[in-house]
């Protein structure tokens, strides 16, 4: 392997002597800044949030429709109260006699 000239070696040797030990500790708050810039990988995007809202809205709507249909179905199949029949009959009877 090629070696450096003695003069160059000397220059590098002198240069090494100047290397002052710099702190290798992370500056205060460095880790926090990196993590803040990184953000959670699974952070919901606006599109994802809209999708979730739309999905929840759709589920709610379907549930409401089903509930409404059940209520209507129950109302449609339920027997009319007897009082309503009797009042209707008496109304018809009174009108027909007149």
């Amino acid at each position: 392997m090629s070696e450096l000239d003695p003069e160059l070696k000397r220059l590098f040797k002198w240069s090494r002597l100047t290397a002052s030990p710099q702190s290798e500790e992370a500056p205060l708050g460095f880790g926090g800044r990196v993590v803040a810039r990184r953000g959670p990988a699974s952070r919901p995007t606006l599109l994802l949030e809209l999708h979730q809202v739309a999905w929840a809205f759709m589920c709610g709507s379907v549930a409401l429709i089903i509930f409404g249909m059940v209520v209507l179905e129950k109302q449609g199949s339920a027997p009319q109260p007897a009082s309503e029949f009797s009042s209707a009959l008496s109304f018809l009877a009174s009108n027909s006699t007149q």
Partner: protein
Amino acid sequence: MLRDLDLNVADWLARVRKQDQDAARSLVEYLYPTVIRIVRANLPRRAAEEDLAQEIFLKMFAKLDQYEAVMPLEHWVSRIAVNHCLNAIRAQKARPEWRMADLSEEQASVLEAVTTDGADDAHPSPTQLLGARELVELLLDALGAEDRLLIRMLELDELSIDEVGTITGWSATYIRVRAFRARRKLKKKFAELRKAEGL
């Protein structure tokens, strides 16, 4: 907390992958010395070391799912750091033209001192040492990004070829060949410098 990381990197990484912010912060602090050493040695001109270190950590987090523990985490991260620094150096605008006439009086006197016979026995003053450092930086600046990295690791940090291979991920053969060429270029630049100064 950092000792825990030493004990079980896999568990710690699993926590980071599950978005544990404290674990991520501790991971950054644990790896900071490894990254900042590489950044300081390969800092592009006008770049702030902290900005570059942040970019490296962000890249590390982005690639964390690719880490498969076939090598120590520090080695994996140091390779990311080396590649990121090399790309940053390559991306910067062309180096200003290297002009011998730009040597300061102090640098010129250092150049004369190191080329004088018997300089090995000399006791350089702090100013001369500083001048030597500036001269070395000037010479390294005249090399390409990879050559500069290699010379710095081999000649300044006095790392072995194996150690350079561990940090960079390059093969020993590649390092030897590259270092041979880098030293040749360095010697040529140094000869030009001496010639310009009439030494």
